[in-house]
């Protein structure tokens, strides 16, 4: 019996190892690529830990004055789209949950299904016509397509679970709807807002397709910038991997730090998504 338990235990750990290792090995290899000189990256058999670390790969990426610009662009686009998304999405989620207007959430669902490119064609023409193509404005606006549905979706789910009794009591005490929302519903919903915020930031930060169409030389976000590195600079792996790692590092850190919230948000959103 004990042997059987032990075997089960070993089997479980073997399964866990099999499942987690592709993810871990990939990111370890990514780190390794980013820290090797060209000669080590071209070596056969491949080298995992080089004798000399090529910190210069990172220096090269960080020193190029454009990286700062692109980083700032990413911050501005993701930051603005997320904050605007919260400003309109949180009250909307509240309103829809209280109105029990769950059917209207179908629009949100369809928005999730729609291929990003089909937003891009009309908005691209619109932005050209408005003459705002050289600025970050088009990207901020189109990133609302990502952030607003996520935020509304998560907030509807969250407000549905928060108790109405407290809000009713406040109404009896003479508070109007806005005050009830501001002082009763909103504080209770803070964990939900955190989840919505994190997911909106991650998906906006990661977005690539909107940027390749709408971004000019000065207005690229990081994912677009790192992609452009392949086409315009010589294909040297070390700096490219270093740049790729730097681009995704904020998101990876957020994932590790806020793992619990992310899992909760994705599961809730996904299960409701059916």
């Amino acid at each position: 019996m004990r042997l059987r338990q032990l075997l089960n235990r070993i089997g479980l750990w073997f399964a866990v190892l099999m499942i987690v290792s592709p993810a871990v090995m990939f990111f370890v290899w990514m780190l390794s690529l980013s820290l090797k000189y060209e000669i080590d990256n071209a070596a056969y058999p491949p080298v995992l830990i080089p004798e000399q670390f090529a910190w210069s790969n990172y220096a090269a990426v960080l020193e190029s004055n454009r990286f700062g610009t692109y980083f700032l662009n990413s911050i501005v686009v993701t930051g603005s789209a997320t904050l605007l998304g919260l400003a309109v999405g949180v009250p909307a989620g509240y309103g829809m949950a209280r109105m029990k207007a769950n059917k209207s959430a179908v629009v949100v669902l369809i928005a999730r299904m729609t291929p990003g490119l089909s937003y891009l064609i009309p908005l691209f023409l619109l932005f050209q016509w408005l003459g705002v193509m050289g600025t970050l404005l088009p990207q901020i606006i189109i990133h609302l397509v990502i952030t607003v549905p996520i935020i509304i979706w998560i907030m509807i789910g969250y407000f549905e679970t928060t108790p109405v009794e407290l809000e009713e009591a406040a109404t009896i005490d003479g508070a109007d709807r806005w005050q009830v929302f501001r002082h009763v519903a909103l504080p209770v919903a803070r964990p939900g807002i955190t989840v919505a915020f994190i997911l909106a930031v991650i998906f906006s930060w990661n977005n690539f397709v909107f940027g390749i169409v709408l971004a000019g030389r000065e207005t690229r976000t990081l994912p677009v910038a790192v992609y452009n590195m392949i086409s315009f600079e010589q294909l040297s792996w070390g700096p490219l991997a270093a740049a790729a790692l730097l681009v995704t590092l904020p998101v990876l850190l957020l994932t590790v730090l806020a793992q619990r919230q992310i899992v909760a948000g994705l599961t809730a959103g996904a299960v409701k998504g059916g």
Partner: protein
Amino acid sequence: MSSLALDKPAPQAATRPARDGWRSGSYWPFVLPALLVVGSVIVFPWAFTLWMSLHEWQVGGGSSFVGAANFMRLFTDLRFHEAIVHTLVFTALAVLLPLVLGLFSAIVFHQNFKGRGFLRGLFVMPMMATPVAIALVWAMMFHPQLGVLNYLLSLVGIPPQLWVFHPATVIPSLVLVETWQWTPLVMLIVLGGLAAIPTEPYESARIDGATAWQTFRHITLPLVMPFIMVAAIIRSIDALKSFDIIYAITQGGPGTASETINLYLYSVAFAYYDIGYGSAIAVVFFLMVIGLACLLLWLKQRTKWTEVGVGA
């Protein structure tokens, strides 16, 4: 802390007399701003795409109504037909593999073991990481001479592959990336389902002396089926729309061997600036996505006798 503010709402109410009407009023003012945003960045593009799909559009010039001509063109466009085939093959594989592996991973993560939360966090990382950044590293790993994948294959005695550089292996290679990236999402959804299963059926199964496989086949699988279906729906939609990974690794190549509808749509609209035709492709593509989603939703309804778990 903020509830303190409730004790003295009077001064605030006085500064906002207009909002008094809300007391008995509706929740519409909360929804209105979002409605405006959704209307202008989501609904307007849908309508405009539909309108443009019926027009011939010149960049910088005007547009002329051409009726269904753009849609008729789709019937004779061989590159579009090929793209449909690529999309269907890619989607089928990129749904099935993550479903199977995700179900397996969920069962493993449903067990109790040390460091489960941390390991789950590591497991979820591929899904949250920036797709383009990941794609660049995969592209390096796929490299036939310098890539690490062929080295790993050589360790187990498999001859080197051309991966994304050969028409026959490009789609399976991209599916590998997609599977690596999205298995965690399936895992999370199914894990949520497993957590919602009551323990009673398992206890009676054990008393009846059921084997582990019988327990899985006749209890676990039927009970998590609704969740697997939800995962299948989400995965299908995302796989159909997949863009970043394919574009960043192959740009649809070699030749057009991995060009899916979404990539072809991109080329038509933003490389050839054939906006009208691109819009027509977008409309058809959108209908395909909705159609598939409806089909899977219908399948999910058929499994709803196990609805117990879905309320979670």
